């Protein structure tokens, strides 16, 4: 590899090879392309738009929607109907197609997006079937099984875009613009926020990310691209029949997404080109080319679940490795942003799971800037208490207040935005995300939202303060459990909390590491953050908190200075299983 001259490697690493490939394709079509080849290449662009939209829904938001194909069909019908019946409509068909699909998606999404994977897939499948039924049977409007023939060519601002070269250019330009926008958005903090929201929704909410809102936005935006693609399709083909709303469109879109890649925009183009051209290339298989295509998709799911785009990227990285990124910029948060510390009040909170009272009339107050530790045997309600405070679980009785503000019935992400940050007992980090990015993600909910590199520099600051800066470039999945918890602590600080809630931050660390963490936490909370720590290790807690609370079977059995609680006979009975104070070493 050393024989390769450096400038060549730089060239191959950049975007140039892609541009050259695209230009070569255009030139090839311009020179040898007959009208059929032109049409096929144009249809590939419409499919690419459809797949790009599905990447938002399925790849980024993780919603297994089966309505994307029907929304494509909806766009096609809207474009056809407008251009056939509204003479002014020919230049507005594409926006109308996109908007109508978005409208339907917004309606459907508002209702079914909260359903879990398999229910969501089924609900979207039902919606798709309803759209298809309407296309086949609402003959007055859709022309029934015959469809709508004679859809005119598209016209923009009075200029007709004829089928063939001009349409090809328009379709691929639209894809290029949409792909550029998507790639830009995903390269920022939004992409990171989507990764966390998809893989660890509670963690995303804990740093103020509105998971439901993000999913909804992605679903509607994806539908907009599907509608746009459908509108283009109607103008390219000139006929719209119920086939455009049928299952094979959805299956094709899904398969193209899997083959191309779920998230990289280049994958949308690759998958779509393969989907539309495979029948040509596999022509020697006669009517069996679709079998080959399905088998290829299956093989990709099994062997290369991240698709062709990822394979290409890997090959490129291997052949022409990227130079080590030297930017190690560290940025301390500006001094003015530290938020006023605040008191946390838990008032008569109760919570039951079935017949088990996990929390029973729990009342506690954390003064502004105070650090309190919570101990208690397994199953005593410690984590439930944290989940109620952070809004992951609703309290059945009582309420939690932050300063004067009641947190009752507030979604977890709004509680986080009020300044409550937390870590989790089983660290909730996206395995494929780098440690630095995982911490930077917490800046997503800030307003104004900082650029990703600024967030990254601040993230490095917190990693340094917590003591895991040496892992910044590693993937979270590669870290041992103890260090993952530390990354979560850094992420919680990145959210600039007024109240910091830590669930067993010391578990999985060696004794020396725990002492070190306690020391760092003491320094970090010097800025006035109120801290609530759950842990089993009283020595660890003694080194970083002012006061201890002991829970047993959902009730507070002791609350006071560390030494008092440590010597409390009830605590000893509940926690150590012995009550003879003399036994203490």
């Amino acid at each position, binding site marked *: 590899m050393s024989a390769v001259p450096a400038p060549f490697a730089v060239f191959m690493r950049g975007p140039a090879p892609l541009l050259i490939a695209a230009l070569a394709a255009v030139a090839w079509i311009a020179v040898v392309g007959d009208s059929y080849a032109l049409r096929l290449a144009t249809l590939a662009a419409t499919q690419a738009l459809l797949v790009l939209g599905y990447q938002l829904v399925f790849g980024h938001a993780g919603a297994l929607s089966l309505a994307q194909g029907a929304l494509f069909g909806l766009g096609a019908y809207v474009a056809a109907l407008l251009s056939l019946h509204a003479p002014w409509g020919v230049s507005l068909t594409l926006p109308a197609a996109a908007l109508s699909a978005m409208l339907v998606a917004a309606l459907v999404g508002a209702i079914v997006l909260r359903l879990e994977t*398999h229910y969501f*897939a089924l609900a979207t499948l039902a919606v798709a079937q309803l759209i298809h039924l309407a296309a086949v049977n609402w003959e007055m409007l859709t022309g029934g099984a015959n469809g709508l023939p004679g859809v005119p060519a598209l016209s923009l601002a009075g200029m007709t875009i004829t089928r063939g070269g001009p349409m090809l250019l328009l379709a691929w330009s639209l894809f290029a613009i949409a792909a550029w926008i998507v790639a830009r958005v995903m390269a920022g903090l939004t992409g990171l926020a989507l990764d966390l929201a998809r893989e660890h929704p509670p963690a995303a909410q804990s740093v103020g990310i509105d998971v439901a809102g993000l999913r909804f936005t992605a679903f509607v935006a994806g539908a907009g691209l599907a509608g746009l693609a459908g509108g283009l399709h109607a103008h390219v083909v000139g006929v719209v029949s119920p086939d455009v709303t049928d299952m094979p469109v959805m299956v094709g879109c899904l398969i193209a997404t899997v083959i191309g890649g779920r998230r990289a925009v280049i994958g949308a183009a690759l998958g779509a080109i393969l989907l539309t051209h495979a029948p040509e290339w596999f022509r020697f298989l006669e*009517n*069996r080319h679709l079998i080959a295509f399905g088998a290829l998709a299956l093989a990709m799911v*099994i062997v290369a679940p991240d698709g062709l785009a990822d394979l290409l990227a890997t090959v490129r990285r291997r052949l022409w490795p990227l130079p080590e990124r030297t930017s190690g910029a560290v940025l301390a948060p500006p001094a003015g942003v530290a938020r006023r510390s605040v008191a946390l009040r838990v008032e008569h909170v109760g919570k039951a799971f079935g017949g088990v009272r996990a929390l029973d009339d729990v009342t506690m107050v954390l003064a502004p800037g105070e650090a309190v530790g919570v101990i208690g045997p397994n199953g005593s309600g410690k984590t439930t208490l944290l989940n109620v405070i952070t809004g992951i679980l609703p309290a059945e009785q009582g309420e939690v207040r932050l300063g004067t503000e009641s947190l009752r019935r507030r979604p977890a992400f709004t509680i986080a935005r009020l300044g409550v940050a937390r870590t989790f007992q089983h660290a909730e980090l996206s395995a494929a995300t780098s440690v630095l990015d995982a911490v930077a993600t917490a800046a997503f909910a800030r307003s104004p939202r900082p650029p990703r590199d600024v967030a990254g520099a601040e993230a490095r600051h917190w990693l340094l303060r917590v003591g895991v800066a040496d892992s910044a470039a590693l993937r979270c999945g590669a870290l041992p459990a103890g260090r993952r918890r530390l990354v979560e602590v850094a992420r919680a600080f990145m959210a600039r909390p007024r109240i910091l809630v830590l669930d067993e931050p010391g578990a999985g660390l060696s004794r020396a590491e725990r002492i070190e963490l306690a020391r760092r936490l003491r320094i970090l909370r010097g800025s006035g953050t109120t801290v609530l720590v759950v842990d089993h290790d009283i020595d660890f807690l003694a080194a970083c908190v002012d006061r201890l609370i002991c829970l047993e079977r959902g009730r507070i059995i002791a609350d006071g200075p560390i030494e008092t609680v440590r010597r409390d006979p009830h605590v000893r009975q509940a926690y150590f299983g012995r009550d003879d104070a003399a036994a203490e070493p």
Partner: protein
Amino acid sequence: MLTVQLLVNALALGAAYALVALGFVLVLNAAGAVNFAHGDMVMLGGVAGVTLAAMLAGAGLRLPGIVLLPLVVLISGLVGLGVAALGFWPLRDRPPAAMFVATIALAAVFEQSATAFFGPEPRTAPAVWDGAPIAIGGITLGRQPLALIVVAGVAIAGVYALLEKTQIGRRFRAVAQDRDMARALGVRAVHLVVGAFVLAGGLAGLAGALLGHQFFVNAGQGPAYMLKAYIAAAVGGWGSVPGALLGALLIALFETLVSAALSAVWAQALLYFALLAILLWRPQGLFGEAIGRRA
């Protein structure tokens, strides 16, 4: 009198749907994921029935349909094994969405294969019980619906006995409840999951061969059957076997009655609306409690 005929037809359809739903929900419980190719296993059962009958007729053997059923079940069980080998086995440690997507691709392969080798035009599977309708009192009943009810009933009872009365059934239920825990206790979970696929394939194929006489067999019918089973599982309470069976019967009843009163199209449309309404207001299904977060 007409209502009795209608109800018998609905029951026959429901019995076939119940076979489909039973296999669907067994795989759902065992693998923790939806098998999107399940409907195509039904279709392949129908194809096997038609092809076997044609081959035997070609050899000069005209056997009654009932004799073919064991062969169809055997072939379909092998199809189920194939689905397990390609759609489940390589993906067993990945999130459920991976199997969902893989089986969608597999369904496409099945459908296209059937179109390519069997032909796109609908064909009729052999009757299980041939002959003129039976008249009891003033009621005339087709023989095929009656035979369908009996055969499906026996198959379902057999599976039920397997699940409830045998050691394998107990192990299977343990795996369905908590795969990791069952594994920790020494149950060879993956074998049981593959077994569930084989059983589901057999049941689906049986349903396909039974339905193929009245409703024809065609390559593109898979997704519709899959959807019926999927809806039955959702309506009956995700993962509940009796719930899915009851859900299948309800769907058949709904389809038959609404088709008779309005039209087949309205029956379909209203079924989807009803499903959406149920998912919205009673996501735990019509019967019983939610199984929890399975998906």
